[in-house]
């Protein structure tokens, strides 16, 4: 017998399936790689170059970060390389980003006294601590004096700071920058690796736990992160019991006939309904329907100002719970059907009622599957943006939905969401170039957050499974 060749040997199918897996893996890695590279790099202190423009008379040299290179079609229709320069100083030397043809560039020089400052408003400021064009020794002294004063000023709380820092532009112009505006500073051209890492983590930390500033292009994303996690948790708390109970009814109690089968198909189809439809439903049913009536019944004295009759955390969580309910039901039912019939029979044969059997045997055995459902629901829910825009998510929420004032959890409040935050940064930002790195960073964070939420559930599930695992399989 000769070995079969070609497609019939089965090698082709093997290659095909391996290829599919490889492609999937590659795409996932590419996604994560892009996000990681573009997102993580944002906080790294980058060198500031003093750029001159010898060909253009009257154009003064500027201090800028050489952000990226691309090509553009010039007046003659030829492609010409150009640099994107980030010059900062939006308030006095706008624009803060500019494209410069490479041909027009003269010398590029990295001044050790270049400083980048993070400010409370107007974005970053770039400048020199010492005036250009004076002897080196003199500059050194001036820079050191400026630094000492700056450090001393930053030790004082922002509100009580007096005075201003004098920044020199590359052409020697001076600009006074009040100390109270400054958040942090670094000297990217004069720093070692360790110092750069320090600045990096300080900025990353601030990003994670600070509220946004400057139309979300500055500051952190903490409210969005917090809102997302809180909303997902609320959704989980709502969807898990409802999903489990529904699945238990469908699988354990309902007569297995046409009606049940139809119900099952309906549930499965719900999973395929576009999420924006859920948003519309949530707005119409929860916000305007349930919420309005709740206001009339419970918060009548606050009317006409709505309490629950307006988009808020509760409605967002409920809408997402509804959205993820099919996933939850299907996963739980799958788990229930995997509980061996013998276990039910054994329990019933020992004189247990159906409820006792369900509670003591079936549900504990199906728990890993329930958690799988939770994982899938969380993954789906945390990534949803569209329906949330209708039922509670806002671009900027003044208050967190969880705080120290009674009743602590404010279900009626609107909240921020990482997914929406990304959308807002990417499409609604007045300053596209400034917002772009933040889009990547936020997206990366969203992915990491979902991974962490899932990982938690996976670990919990593995723990539950391992407790009574049959060592032989």
């Amino acid at each position, binding site marked *: 017998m000769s070995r079969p060749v070609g497609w019939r040997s089965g090698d082709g199918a093997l290659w095909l399936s391996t290829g599919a897996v490889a492609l999937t893996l590659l795409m996932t890695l590419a996604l994560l790689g892009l996000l990681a590279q573009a997102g993580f790099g944002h906080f790294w202190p980058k060198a500031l170059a003093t750029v001159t423009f010898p060909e253009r008379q009257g154009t003064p040299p500027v201090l800028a970060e050489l952000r990226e290179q691309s090509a553009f079609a010039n007046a003659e229709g030829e492609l010409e390389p150009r640099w994107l320069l980030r010059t900062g100083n939006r308030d006095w030397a706008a624009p803060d980003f500019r494209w410069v043809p490479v041909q027009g560039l003269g010398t590029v020089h990295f001044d050790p006294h270049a400083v980048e400052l993070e400010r409370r408003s107007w974005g970053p400021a770039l400048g020199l601590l010492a005036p250009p064009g004076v002897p080196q020794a003199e500059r050194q002294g001036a820079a050191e004096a400026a630094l000492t004063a700056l450090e001393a000023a930053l030790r004082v709380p922002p509100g009580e700071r007096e005075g201003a820092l004098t920044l020199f532009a590359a052409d020697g112009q001076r600009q006074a920058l009040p100390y109270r505006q400054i958040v942090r500073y670094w000297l990217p051209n004069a720093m070692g690796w360790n110092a750069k890492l320090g600045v990096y983590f300080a900025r990353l930390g601030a990003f994670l736990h600070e509220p946004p500033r400057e139309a979300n292009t500055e500051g952190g994303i903490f409210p969005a992160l917090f809102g997302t996690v809180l909303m997902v948790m609320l959704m989980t708390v709502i969807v898990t019991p409802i999903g489990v109970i529904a699945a238990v009814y469908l699988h354990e109690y309902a007569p297995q006939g046409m009606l049940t089968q139809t119900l099952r198909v309906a549930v499965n189809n719900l999973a395929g309904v576009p999420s924006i439809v859920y948003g519309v439903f949530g707005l119409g049913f929860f916000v305007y329907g349930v919420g309005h009536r709740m206001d009339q019944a419970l918060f009548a004295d606050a009317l006409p100002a709505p309490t629950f009759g307006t988009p808020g955390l509760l409605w967002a969580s409920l809408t997402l719970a509804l959205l993820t309910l099919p996933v939850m039901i299907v996963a739980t039912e799958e788990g229930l059907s995997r509980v061996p019939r013998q276990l039910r029979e054994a329990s019933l044969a020992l004189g247990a009622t159906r409820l006792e059997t369900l509670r003591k045997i079936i549900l504990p055995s199906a728990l890993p599957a329930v958690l799988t459902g939770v994982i899938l629901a969380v993954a789906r829910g945390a990534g949803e943006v569209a329906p949330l825009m209708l039922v509670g998510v806002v671009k900027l929420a003044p208050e967190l939905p969880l705080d120290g004032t009674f009743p602590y959890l404010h279900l009626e409040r609107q909240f921020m969401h990482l997914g929406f935050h990304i959308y807002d940064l990417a499409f609604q930002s007045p300053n596209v170039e400034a917002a772009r790195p933040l889009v990547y960073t936020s997206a990366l964070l969203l992915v990491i957050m979902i991974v962490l939420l899932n990982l938690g559930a996976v670990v919990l599930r593995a723990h539950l499974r391992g407790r009574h695992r*049959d060592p032989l399989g």
Partner: protein
Amino acid sequence: MRNEPPTLHFEPADRCLTVDRLSVRYQGKAALRDVSLTVPRHRVTAFIGPSGCGKSTLLRSFNRMNDLIRGVEVTGRIQLFEDDILAPELDVTALRRRVGMVFQQPNPFPMSVFDNVAYGLRLQGLREQRALEGEVEWALRSAALWDEVKDRLDASALTLSGGQQQRLVIARAIAVRPEVLLLDEPASALDPISTLKIEELIGKLAEQYSIVVVTHNMQQAARVSHYTAFLYLGELVEFSGTDDLFTRPQARQTEDYITGRYG
């Protein structure tokens, strides 16, 4: 008209389960037809017959496990001692505490050895740890498993071997001290040595329990039982002493089946 099958009659005091003209239909299909027999007290009675002969259906009628199946119709009468167990108003959970059952596949619950055996006791409301420990030990000893598991009562029952699991399941069933023990192919999933241990255990348990065992292993029925009933196509063909049934069966169908001429 069918002739009355050869059967056995027992003194009223020795009757544990009395089946009278029992018929069971699943969605209109007859699984048992007009079966009448008496399961004697404190003896091992075996039901043998080819697959689909109704032996498991008969066994599952004794603790109303057939109720779980949709579309089942039962007619006739089964008495457990004096009580009519097919009565609609009967508390099925109470019946199942009197009639324990062990299944073909060892089916310990995914919990510890101790909790497995204590399961039925806890269902009955026994909560006190000391009492539970005593009962669990008694049941495990009765099932000849105590010496093997006494040091790992807290280990998962799923870490036991197949034979140990099946004895654990027997211990779980007898922990609630039932009057009857139903064994549905108790050793068919086990290796020969574990099978012998189970058979040995059945012999010992017969001193205190009335045991009904369904098996497709005729040699096993011959080894463990005092009485054997042969069922074929839902009917009782022959019920007699095991020694008689295996050396000189009365009915031709029995003869063909036990000599391996069933085809």
